[in-house]
């Protein structure tokens, strides 16, 4: 186990290095001069050139890259062009909001998606199954931006029971709608996933064995079937959590949620390369970390898995 974790951490470094290289290359392939945006689009060529030089953008790309890596190794992600502030504190300052939303979103996915998936799987082909499948289809197909606006309109404006976006320092009434929007799309997916996995599991011999013992349907579902579905669900959950943690851009945009996703998008629009790279690396770290966590979780969920 320890060896495994060490190996995975080693891989993590490799992955992050790869991510850094790819992001850096992409950032340099994207047309546009960060200095121009930094200076303002009306800025004169001369002042842009000076800022270009000041930002070190006139150095050879490999020099910039090595310099960047060297600083990243020292946890110095550089200065944001746009906000004239150090990148890492900027990300860390915004991360708690994203983390809160991500966890809440995953929570909604689970508490909405799992019961629906179970309902659908235990009555395949029934009207319940069809209703739930329509629900999942709708939540899956509905663009989060649109869904978020609808929620805001209905529960913020029409029946004003929730705030119209904003963070409110993490007060639950502010968290509710974004978490719901974030979680519902996933919930539909989870319902489908769980239905598919359970339809695969329920005909299994060990489920038949459990039934032959005379245990109740609840026990069969929760003790025998669901734990076997967990590996699949946890894999997805881990991916989602990583993905959510890495920033849920659209939701954060709709709900004025001050997370790293929104920040990253702004950074991309503004060619704020240090902030883009910092966010990407941070996000990659979270995603890879979530995957390692999932792998470790496997050993608890499935006794057959050993590292």
């Amino acid at each position, binding site marked *: 186990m320890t060896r495994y974790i060490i190996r995975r951490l080693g891989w993590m470094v490799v992955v992050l290095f790869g991510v850094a290289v790819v992001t850096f290359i992409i950032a340099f392939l994207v047309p546009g001069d960060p200095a121009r945006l930094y200076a303002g689009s009306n800025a004169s060529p001369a002042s842009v050139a000076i800022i270009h030089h000041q930002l070190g953008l006139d150095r050879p790309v490999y020099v910039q890259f090595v310099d960047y890596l060297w600083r990243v190794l020292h946890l110095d992600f550089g200065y944001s062009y746009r906000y004239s502030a150090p990148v890492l504190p900027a990300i860390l300052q915004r991360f708690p909001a994203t983390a809160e939303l991500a966890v809440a979103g995953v929570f909604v996915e689970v508490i909405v998606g799992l019961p629906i998936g179970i309902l659908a799987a235990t009555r395949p082909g029934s009207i319940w199954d069809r209703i739930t499948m329509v629900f999942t289809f709708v939540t899956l197909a509905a663009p989060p931006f649109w869904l978020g606006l609808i929620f805001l309109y209905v529960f913020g404006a029409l029946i004003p029971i929730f705030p119209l976006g904003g963070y409110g320092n993490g007060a639950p009434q502010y968290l509710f709608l974004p978490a719901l929007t974030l979680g519902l799309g996933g919930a539909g997916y989870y319902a489908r996933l769980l239905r598919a996995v359970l339809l695969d599991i329920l005909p299994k*011999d060990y489920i*038949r*064995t459990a039934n*032959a*013992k005379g*245990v109740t349907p609840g*026990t069969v579902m929760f003790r025998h079937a669901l*734990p*076997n579905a967990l590996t699949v669900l946890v894999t997805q959950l881990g991916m989602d959590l990583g993905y959510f943690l890495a920033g849920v851009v659209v939701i954060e945009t709709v709900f004025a949620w001050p997370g790293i996703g929104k920040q990253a998008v702004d950074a991309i629009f503004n060619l704020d390369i240090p902030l883009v790279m910092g966010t990407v690396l941070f996000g990659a770290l979270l995603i890879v970390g979530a995957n390692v966590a999932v792998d470790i979780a496997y050993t608890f969920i499935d006794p057959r898995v050993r590292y």
Partner: protein
Amino acid sequence: MATPILQVRDLRTQFAMPDGIIKAVDGVSFDLYPGESLGIVGESGSGKSVTALSLLRLVPHPGRIVSGEVLFRNQDLLQMTDQEIREIRGRDIAMIFQDPQSSLNPVLRTGFQVDEAMRAHGKSKADAHARTIELLTKVRIPAAESRVKDYPHQLSGGMRQRAMIAMGLANAPAILLADEPTTALDVTVQAQILELLADLNRELGTAIVMITHNMGVVAGLCSRVMVMYAGQIVEEGPVEQIFESPQHPYTWSLLKSIPRVDALRHERLRSIQGMAPDLADPPAGCRFHPRCPFRIEECFTKEPKLLDVAPNQRAACWVTMDRARREMGADTLIDIHPGAGSGVRPGEEI
């Protein structure tokens, strides 16, 4: 014999498939007596497993029991509520399955799975646990105290099947339905499991229904045997009698087609030509007639009833083997071709 503990009457179980209704079990009736060991033999698709699953109403989707009675201690299991049948399952009638690898839940500890069989029927956690160790010891799992904490994948195939048997025996059921319990095992392990089942049958008086395709298994373990073909019972009787003097041509052909390890000479096997019928559209008359060497006109149209052919022995056939021997020289046949004996409608292709 005493009164039957289980009476099955005209059981019919069907599967609604896209290309038609599969009549997997089609009018099966039999009695099971306390403490006896009944073998149900048949090839794949003959309906023997579905019969066993139907008894406990464990037929998987899209299967459905469409008619019949399963009387256990004079109560019809098919009419019970879900709650009532759950109480019967595992307590009065237990079932063990073919593949112990897939039949044990991989994520639950072996001991827990045995415990659960008792706890589902009201035993306390501590009692169940103590009995689990006792049971595992009884089915000859060494170091049962530590093995209870193992997950199924940590056990060998034989041990897993022993654990399954322990689970089946946990509530000292009156009936143990064993669905091909040794098929997935190596012969040496199979032999041990069969011995174990025989011992338990003797010691505990549990009635065993042994479902198998292996004639040798039946020969070793069972006192009575039912032969199934295409969803129906074609022959039934005491084991010695059936093996000595099978009256249904299918039973006879089956026995002739099995090579024996103790054979002294190399005899050509007598194969049964053709293949098992499509149960969505079974042949009219006797279902075996397209493959039967001794068929006569009636076989094509009239369905034979399961009738006494000898003391305690019944067969569903218009031309029993006694008649086939007498009239068609059955024992001189080299290969068993459809209609080979009678000359009626010979010469179909495979």
